[in-house]
């Protein structure tokens, strides 16, 4: 082993140290949430810097694999666990931005939690570390460990407001269904191993090498394995029909927690899915692309149709998240021609959603459970800036030009059309028009209706920064998408 390069897992280490640091600071020195904020912020900042450093190093000396074991001959290193590439580096940067924004926006919830707030922050950092592990894992087992690290922390976060009715129920639901999905995932890994004799994505003994060298006349077991892996990841990104947990969890968990859990896990699951499917199972593109397309179509239809009927804002956002999971799956298909489209969609949707949920924390309170759409009534008069931010986010999610959401849809759909999924593009675009009903409804309530109260929601500095940043990104990337697209074009995984 000897000389271990820690850069490939530097981000995970930084977050882990940060999490422990927050807990230690909380029980020894400071009981003020300000002290934890410094530690957590430092961890996230260091994590971001490490991601940038990874990007630079990969740019100079190419991608590299790390943390393998010695082979039988004692020299060659096989079964690499972690890949350091621009794919993982960009994923890390996006994750850090999202985590940072979510924490800044929902810091009020951490304050409300008292001394347990430190645990909340630590869990978020641990979960983020797990998510990044999913993105960089070079082995299906490693991917599973990342998935579980992220998920277990999320189960606890979902039930953190245990004094409120509904929170524990939704956490329990999330835990049970999530465990089931994890079990399916690991079963899928086992079947893949049974079929190919490998769980590794890279190297001489990888799945891809096996598939390239051996024609499989009866790939049934392998296909079931791929299918179960897909199910496990689709569950995490709340794609239909594996989405039932999302509305309850969004509604039950505190709004401040939702901002992180709804976005981070999507980023991780989508990126992991791209790496596994394209690196591991590219020979079976025709088979899995059809499955992904069907899940995408179903997610878009179910998410859009159900979101229209919601009167609770967080349930609405959860179902709209299901529809967006469908769009993201289209982006996964489109990644064959254009990976930057996928990154663009992922990053801009995550930022818009965090921004929107931060607005919700401001209007309805960071620890609020159910948030009726009615609570936005008359916001256009009470707080024009907040209402304008809502309009920007809703238009972006609906894909109206001038926002990043439009460019994201444009590039993804163009790439999907190029890959031959025109039926999916037509379906997605028509569904996104139906989606206007619920996105516009919030704008209508906020701008076109008068409220009984004159009360102006109090916007603290933290949420203000988070919302401002999210608006700037949403509009800025809507007008100058090349800023991110040119950057993301290089974010290829190790091959």
């Amino acid at each position: 082993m000897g000389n271990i390069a820690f850069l490939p897992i530097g981000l995970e280490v930084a977050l882990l140290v940060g999490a422990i640091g927050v807990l230690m600071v909380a029980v020894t020195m400071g009981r003020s949430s300000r002290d934890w904020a410094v530690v957590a912020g430092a961890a996230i900042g260091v994590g971001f810097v490490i991601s940038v450093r990874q990007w630079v190093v990969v740019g100079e000396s190419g991608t590299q694999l790390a943390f393998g074991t010695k082979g039988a001959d004692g020299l060659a290193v096989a079964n690499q666990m972690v890949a350091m590439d621009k794919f993982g580096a960009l994923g890390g940067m996006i994750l850090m931005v999202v985590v940072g924004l979510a924490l800044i926006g929902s810091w009020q919830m951490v304050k409300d939690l008292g001394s347990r707030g430190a645990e909340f922050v630590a869990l978020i950092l641990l979960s983020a570390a797990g998510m990044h592990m999913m993105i960089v894992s070079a082995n299906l087992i490693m991917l599973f460990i990342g998935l579980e690290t992220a998920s277990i922390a999320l189960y606890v976060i979902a039930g953190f407001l245990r004094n409120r009715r509904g929170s524990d129920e939704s956490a329990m639901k999330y835990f049970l269904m999530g465990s089931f999905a994890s079990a399916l995932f690991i079963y899928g890994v086992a079947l893949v191993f049974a079929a190919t004799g490998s769980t590794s994505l890279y190297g001489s003994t990888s799945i891809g090498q096996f598939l390239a060298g051996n024609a499989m006349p009866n790939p049934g077991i392998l296909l079931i394995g791929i299918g179960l892996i897909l199910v496990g990841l689709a569950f995490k990104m709340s794609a239909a029909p594996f989405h039932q947990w999302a509305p309850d969890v969004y509604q039950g968990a505190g709004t401040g927690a939702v901002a992180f859990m709804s976005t981070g896990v999507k980023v991780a699951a989508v990126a992991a899915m791209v790496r596994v499917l394209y690196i591991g199972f590219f020979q079976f593109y025709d088979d899995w692309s059809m499955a992904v397309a069907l899940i995408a179509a179903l997610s878009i239809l179910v998410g859009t149709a159900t979101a229209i009927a919601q009167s609770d804002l967080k349930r609405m956002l959860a179902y709209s998240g299901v529809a967006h999971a469908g769009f993201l799956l289209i982006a996964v298909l489109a990644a064959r021609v254009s990976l930057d489209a996928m990154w663009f969609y992922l990053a801009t949707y995550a930022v818009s959603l965090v921004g929107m949920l931060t607005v919700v924390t401001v209007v309805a309170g960071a620890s609020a459970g159910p948030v009726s759409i009615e609570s936005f009534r008359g916001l256009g008069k009470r707080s024009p800036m907040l209402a304008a931010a809502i309009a920007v986010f809703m238009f972006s999610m609906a894909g109206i030009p001038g926002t990043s959401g439009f460019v994201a849809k444009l590039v993804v759909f163009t790439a999907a059309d190029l890959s031959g999924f025109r039926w999916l593009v037509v379906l997605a675009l028509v569904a996104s028009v139906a989606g206007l009903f619920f996105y516009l409804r919030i704008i209508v309530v906020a701008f076109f209706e008068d409220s009984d109260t004159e009360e102006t929601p109090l916007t603290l500095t933290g949420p203000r920064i988070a919302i401002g940043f999210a608006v700037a990104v949403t509009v800025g990337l809507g007008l100058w998408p090349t800023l991110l697209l040119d950057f993301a074009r290089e974010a290829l995984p190790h091959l």
Partner: protein
Amino acid sequence: MFPVLAFLVGLPVVAAIVIALIPKSRSELLLPVAFGLSLLPLAVAGYMVWTFNTAGGFQWVESTIWLQQLRIGWTVGVDGISLFLVALTAFLFPISILASANISDRLRGYLVSLFVLETGVLGVFIALDLVLFFVFFEIVLIPMFFMIGIWGSSNRRYAAIKFFVYTAFGSAFLLVSIIALAVNAGPALQTISFQWNELAQVPMTSTLQTWLFFGFAIAFAIKVPLFPLHTWLPDAHTEAPTAGSVLLAGVLLKMGTYGFIRFNLILFPEATVKYGKWIALLAVIGIVYAALVATVQPDIKRLVAYSSVSHLGFIVLGIFALTLTSVQGGIIQMVNHGLSTGALFLLIGMIYERTHTRKIADYGGLASTMPIFSGFFLFAVFASVGLPGLNGFIGEFMVLIGSWQTFPVLTVVAASGVVLAAVYLLWAYERVFTGPPGKANKDLEDLNPREIAILVPIAFLIVLLGVYPKPVLDRMENDVNAVISRIEQSTSYERPTFDLEGQLRISVPAEQGNNSSGESSEGSE
């Protein structure tokens, strides 16, 4: 070269920012500053009309690639087809701002919406990149949505959502078609490109052409609106504030008809020849149907809204008749309709501010209490009906003459729309203005100088275009000719020529000369 078009579209953006930055304490400055700023695009547009080279083709072309890998970019240019729509847009915005003096609630947001709207509409008419076109086409929805929803009348929420979703539904098909078009052209162009001029070079199978033709047509048909897709329009027009109605009728609907010419006719000539008659049929059904519905409307604003549907039918008929006269007539009718219907909506807005009712039955005898107002109203009605000497006549006459050669039966039916227009508009005039004034209407004040100042420029243009349309027709002739020649080259279509007793053949440009001289002589009566 100075980027005239970027300047033109940028001015409203700058104006919106300036308006947003005026401090709350100086809110009395909002309207005057906005009016002043809105004159700048008008000046640029005037300069463009003045210096436009009548040889045609795209002028003031700018091309900058914005997204290299998809070849999307700021590619803009103005030709004879779009020139007057740009001018009309720039002309109607200052008027709309003047007509908004009574808006007190959130005036700043209202003016910002107006300028964003102007940006969008101008962009639509100059864009030569399909994605750029789509962006502007959609951006227009946002300010209009807010204008209807915040500053509209009682049923505004319903109307705003209906307007937005209806139009966005069409846009979804437009976007799919644009993407499919670019992907189809990918192999031929060696790259994905959304440049209009590059895409127009690439041939496509007739099946694909048919699909894409209808994909584009749905979006534009909703915007125009054509007969079965028109139901959003009466609600939106009726609920919108005055300026919103004026701009909806004046320029927003033209985005659909303009799109038909710029995209359907040029990109899909084969499908246009094949299926144009069905679109023309829908247009004619719309002309008659909307005219009949307008006749029985109890609400004056709704009546004018339906008259818009009817008039827009003429334009679409003219476009798909594919003769020089009819297409030119269609284009000039776009401008005419913007002026005359704009004037009608302005007038209805003025009377609504005084009485707060739009029911025709609540009025009566206004001619005696408000003579200036009724004079302008009658003038606008005549322009809309198509009285010779006023602009409406030129457009409708050219459309009917031109379409006769391609669709004789449809044209006969469409001509009945002219008669019906006279019926519903003059009947409405009679009910509102003649007879003894009712109690409620006795003390109405006549138009004040500001309102007269709004109407006089429109009236002037109505007469000018009615009497001397030649400069307008000259500027668009070559470009329209090019569109039709293009269709003739790529399909078996040949434009009909006059065939009098099998001997006298008059070529089309000569026929064109006949028309314009004929109209100017009639105008001088």
